């Protein structure tokens, strides 16, 4: 028995060297093909990631029976800060907002699309958060909050966002970025989100979610 020769091809160094190369290469090729498709589908202006001018419209987040989760719904025209923007103006504003989000290091407290740090709320649908009070005061509340959160009511824990030197221009751009982000189709994340009441008429409002509780609003 001791002299039995057992050099199996499937256990040889050269076989596994080839396997390592082929498996890696095949996985990489599949990934590259998928990447081309994915990049095309997440380019702004597509079905999943809308054009930046979507900030000219009402955005909602409604349960879709067929897909079995909530999906962003682009509603009637409802321009941000009351002014309708061209595609390039909207793109410039959202761009400024994204630069602000990066330069102010938002992701090391907040999560965006669920990625980031866990010290502050997720911002994926923050545009739609009922904590802003009402649809009418939302834009102004967000701007004031961003420019100086330190004296605004946050929560019972005493945890507050610091004042980061955000200018009014940067705050407006950040709000535009957040509104645009809320229109991205995230396959239903976050689930069971309860959007702010955005209805125009009382009849419409009846079908919508409950009004926000003012006492834990981020705005005083």
């Amino acid at each position, binding site marked *: 028995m001791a002299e039995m020769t057992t050099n199996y091809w499937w256990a040889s160094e050269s076989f596994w060297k080839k396997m390592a190369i082929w498996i890696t290469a095949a996985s990489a090729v*599949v990934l590259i093909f998928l990447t081309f498709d994915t990049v095309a589908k997440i*380019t702004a202006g597509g079905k999943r990631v809308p054009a930046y001018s979507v900030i000219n419209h009402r955005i909602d987040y409604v349960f879709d029976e067929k897909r079995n989760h909530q999906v962003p719904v682009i509603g009637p025209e409802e321009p941000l800060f009351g002014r309708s923007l061209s595609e390039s103006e909207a793109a410039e504003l959202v761009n400024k907002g994204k630069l602000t989000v990066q330069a102010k*290091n938002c992701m090391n407290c907040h999560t965006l*699309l669920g*990625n980031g740090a866990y010290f502050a709320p997720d911002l994926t649908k923050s545009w739609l958060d009922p904590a802003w009070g009402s649809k009418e005061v939302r834009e102004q509340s967000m701007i004031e909050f961003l420019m100086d959160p330190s004296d605004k009511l946050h929560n019972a824990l005493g945890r*507050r966002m*610091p*004042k980061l030197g955000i200018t009014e221009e940067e705050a407006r751009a950040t709000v535009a970025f957040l509104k645009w*982000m809320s229109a*991205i189709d995230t396959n239903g994340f976050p689930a069971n989100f309860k959007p702010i009441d955005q209805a125009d008429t009382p009849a419409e409002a009846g079908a919508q979610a409950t009004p926000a509780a003012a006492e834990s609003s981020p705005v005083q």
Partner: protein
Amino acid sequence: MASLGVLDSANLNGGQKLAVKYFTVAIALFGAQVLFGLLAGLQYLYPDFLYGVLDFSVNRMLHINALVVWLLFGFIGAVYWLLEDESGVPVVGLALGNLVFWVLTLAVVVVVGIYLLVQVGPGEMKSIWLINEGREYIEAPRWADIGIVVCMLAFFYNVAATFMKGRFTGIGGVLVLDLVALAGLYTAGMWYTPNISMDQHWWWWVIHLWVEATWEVLVGCLLAYGLIKTMGVRRKIVETWLYIEVALLFGSGILGLGHHYFWIGTPEYWLAIGGFFSALEPIPLVAMVVHAVFDAGHHKLKSTNNPALAWMIAQAFGNFFGAGVWGFMHTLPQINLYTHGTQWTASHGHLAFFGAYATIVIAFVYLAVQKWRGNVWMSGELVGAWRWKWAIFLLHVGMIGMTMALLIAGYEQSQIERAIEGSGWMGYFAAQAHPWFQQGMTWRMISGWVFAAGFLLLAWDLLTIGSRESRPARRLEPQEAMAVS
């Protein structure tokens, strides 16, 4: 050669002299990671602590950046450590290697200074270039990105050219190809886009394809070398297994990228791909278990360096629990919908980074210290062995404590914030105020102090281990361990 037990660079070859510089900075940065982790942890309990001075975002950024950089310094050091041994020739560009070391270290100091003193910039491109890119883990400003790529190219040149001049072993071949991928992937994270979905899509190319693919393979190379060195396992077997691991890790890991593409705007087919490859990712771990038992049955478990071997064993367990168990618990999209972006992720991240990567770098630093002191005895009955044993014990108690505390907090958060309240502002703070969360943060903090104590003991031990030994290291011929008793 100097006397045994004395730190003397004459004991090291050229690459190893450079390696110990990298290791020194790596351990110092490990300390910085622990320090800023403690500060950030305290801010969960005392929100006004350092508010407006060193905010959570700054501490957290330094905590995770120190992690990435100390592991990278450790990896670079470990590669320089084995380079001359593996290739059989001196490092071809040692002067360049030294220059790169000082440039990288200086850059790290400058970036840390900017993070601490400047912190944030205006919402303009110049902030991205000069201050902070604000993208988790790869916050380093763009000037530093470019510097890192140049330094990595110089490092890559040194490794590839040295192997080409000497002999190209199997370990060397895998290492060189892996470094190409590792450096190339970093460039995927350097670009600015206003589109957050696109941003996150490419960001994961760096983060996932580093930690779940190229770093794993790099560690495979280091472990392969470590097994030959500390246990005398035959090279042909080790290298065959390295190829098997590469096939399994890249086969499951590359498309495992899909489990990060569930909720960032990417198409629905990633739900299926991510779920499928996540179910495959434990297979390499099963292979490691069977192989480790097989090896243990055939080799007498004698080692030339007990602390290094202990940390390599810790790597096996840490990788298994941190990446395997903790990963699989929340990776299927049906549950990840609720755990995504909660303390679940923090729990998994802590255990997996520590278990899979911190452990192996520490093992290499122990190997380095042994040789630096003239290849001194580090097997059984080592003088002052209590220090390394208590260090590994405290670091593990602290890490497991933090992981469990974060797990409980994340479990509560996934239910109350995510599932019931639907992730709004009020739901978020309802979950943060819950006793399970609050107590979790307290226990995380206590465990953090234990971990910090373990770190201090580890640093002390690395400075002193072997200094009172006069016995030469146990000799372990290749094949000896294979001999049948």
